């Protein structure tokens, strides 16, 4: 049976590469039984989204000139 420390390794890993079927399954099983690890998984997810906060045009930033937007989402700069 997988323990919490190993579960956190998979929680981290799944944000960097896709897990194998076996890894996914054992992580799901562990999360189903462990509230602390479910919290940890959410914390890792929050950390994973922290970068968007610095992106200037992400939500909550001043004016987003979308007037005249033809619904054509041209990709932002390279």
């Amino acid at each position, binding site marked *: 049976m997988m*323990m*919490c*420390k*190993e579960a*956190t*390794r998979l929680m*981290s*890993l799944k*944000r*960097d*590469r896709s897990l194998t079927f076996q890894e996914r399954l054992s992580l799901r099983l562990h999360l189903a039984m462990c509230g*602390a*690890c479910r*919290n*940890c998984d*959410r*914390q*890792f*997810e*929050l*950390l*994973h*989204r*922290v*970068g968007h*906060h*610095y*992106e*200037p*045009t992400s939500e909550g*930033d*001043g004016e*987003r*000139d*979308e007037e*005249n*937007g033809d619904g054509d989402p*041209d990709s*932002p*700069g*390279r």
Partner: protein
Amino acid sequence: MTSTSTDDDRHRRLAAVRPRLVAFARLHLRDAAQAEDAVQEALVAAIEKQDAFAGRSGYETWVFGILKYKILDAMRTQKRHGKWQPLDEEMEDEAIDRQFQRNGRWLESARPGNWGEPEAAFENERFWQVFDACMIGLPDNLARVFSLRELMGLSTDDICHEVGIKENNCWVMLHRARLRLRACIERGWLEESA
């Protein structure tokens, strides 16, 4: 006339976004002066090249993209000067061992709590203060890999090329960085606001 007002508008927008650019560069370079330099260079490049910017919206995003290149350049320079070391995986990380019992279960004192909705955390100024402090507290190598992955959004494959490590080493570092950050944030943020 039109072009002047566009210039004014852009200068105003650059000034407005500058603090955020500096904060971002600082997290990567971990050096206030180098962060200022990188932002300065990015702003100069943005002003000089603004004819190359075609879009009507997303000007800040475009500038941000320029800054990312400047940061990567500065990081390469840091690395050439030996300011960055890969992780010795054999070495135990005691900051992480302090979170778990021997059998791999959470220690009671380190069990992750509920942080609530991410959006609420991100709205909370205190969260960002704690996050910054915790990033500063990370060892350099962990902070670098974490910031490239989660702030810059590079894939671990790209990070390997950038810093010259094996992908597995990168995954181990990210795991350690995330565990340290979560513990640090939980201590600094939840306990004080409770």
